[in-house]
């Protein structure tokens, strides 16, 4: 009987198929047992990383959180070393892609990107060049020369690099958070986040969700999305930022 089994099953090509099949089945069983045997896998999350909402909303919130964390590290590296990464082989193409990714966090709105005020040096004939903010809809506003060099906490968020290059929006935002980290208005948890260049968060009882603060890049002030109408004045209050 054994000889018949060897002759019929373990002969020729069949032995190869049997060998492969046995290993595939064994691996599948092993993966299934590993999956079932670890009840905590994927379930534990620190409270600060827990998000409410539907599954796609939670997944998007976690993705956003990871991207925020990465962007904060890259902004710190850009301030310190002028590049988003210290990896060997880090080139301009990768740097541009990293900056694009970070800018995407600041500008997630799919609406058309508004014209940005341009920070630069403008000169007129016979007049010493001035550093200022240029907006096509407004008159040129001269400003004191922006310092250059390596940015440190407490310095102007729009400080230029050593080469005179203006900071990216993501870098400005990260600097704003670091500058405001000592403000007693933010609780300890948020202050720790802000020291790392990450935006502070709050719980909105109306929506039951976490909200992330935004930066108005024209004023470099922190705030929150949304508006609250004041019925006793014509204007509305709130941060209506164009770029966040």
């Amino acid at each position: 009987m054994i000889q018949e089994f060897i002759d019929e099953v373990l002969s020729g090509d069949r032995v190869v198929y049997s060998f492969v099949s046995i290993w595939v089945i064994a691996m599948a069983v092993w993966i299934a047992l590993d999956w079932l045997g670890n009840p905590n896998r994927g379930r534990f999350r620190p409270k600060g990383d827990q998000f409410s909402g539907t599954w796609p909303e939670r997944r998007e919130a976690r993705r956003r959180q990871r991207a925020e964390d990465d962007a904060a590290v890259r902004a710190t590296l850009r301030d310190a070393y002028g590049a988003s990464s210290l990896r060997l082989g880090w080139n301009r193409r990768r740097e541009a892609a990293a900056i694009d990714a970070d800018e995407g966090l600041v500008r997630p709105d799919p609406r058309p990107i508004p014209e940005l005020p341009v920070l630069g040096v403008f000169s007129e004939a016979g007049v010493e060049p001035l550093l200022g903010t240029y907006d096509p809809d407004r008159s040129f506003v001269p400003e004191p020369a922006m310092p250059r060099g390596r940015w440190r906490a407490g310095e102007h968020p729009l400080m230029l690099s050593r080469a005179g290059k203006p900071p990216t929006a993501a870098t400005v935002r990260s600097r704003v958070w670091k500058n405001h980290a000592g403000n007693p208005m933010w609780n300890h948890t948020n202050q720790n986040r802000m020291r790392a260049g990450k935006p502070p968060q709050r719980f909105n009882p109306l929506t039951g969700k976490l909200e992330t603060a935004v930066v108005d890049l024209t004023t470099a002030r922190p705030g929150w999305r949304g508006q609250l109408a004041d019925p006793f004045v014509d204007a509305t209050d709130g941060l209506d930022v164009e770029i966040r």
Partner: protein
Amino acid sequence: MSTTPSASEQWLDDLTDTAEIAGETVYAAVTLDLDIDSVVVIHRRHAGDERPQGLAIDTDRPFTIAGRETSTAVLWSDTAPDTVELIASAGRLTLWNVWRHEGAVHAWIGDAGIRRVNVDDHGSDFALRLLATDGFGNTSPTLEVEVQVNAAPRPTPNAE
């Protein structure tokens, strides 16, 4: 340095709008469920002068205030009169405190929170007092308002 988490940290950690601070319940927002159309009178008793304090209002159905119809509004200490009356439809009415700092409106951060006290006011159907602090670690309330709720008068049928 205190290690006791602030109310806003507890709201963040537990994803709830209430927290226990020194044996007191501190609310992120106070919600009133109005069974019928109501006249809500909000009287500001005190507002800190370090920065503008506001009482934000949000409802699930539009309400009328200062001749305008809206579902979200804020009564600022520097623009709104001390006593404001709004006509709200039956439904949810949520109140919370906000403040202006460096040109932006903030709420639910730092040491912000609302303590509520029911008031025995015989002149109204329901009344409560809200003692709110902004996020700057004040021990005394930076905004104190009294809210009185009365049933809205029913429209009289036309005699013709």
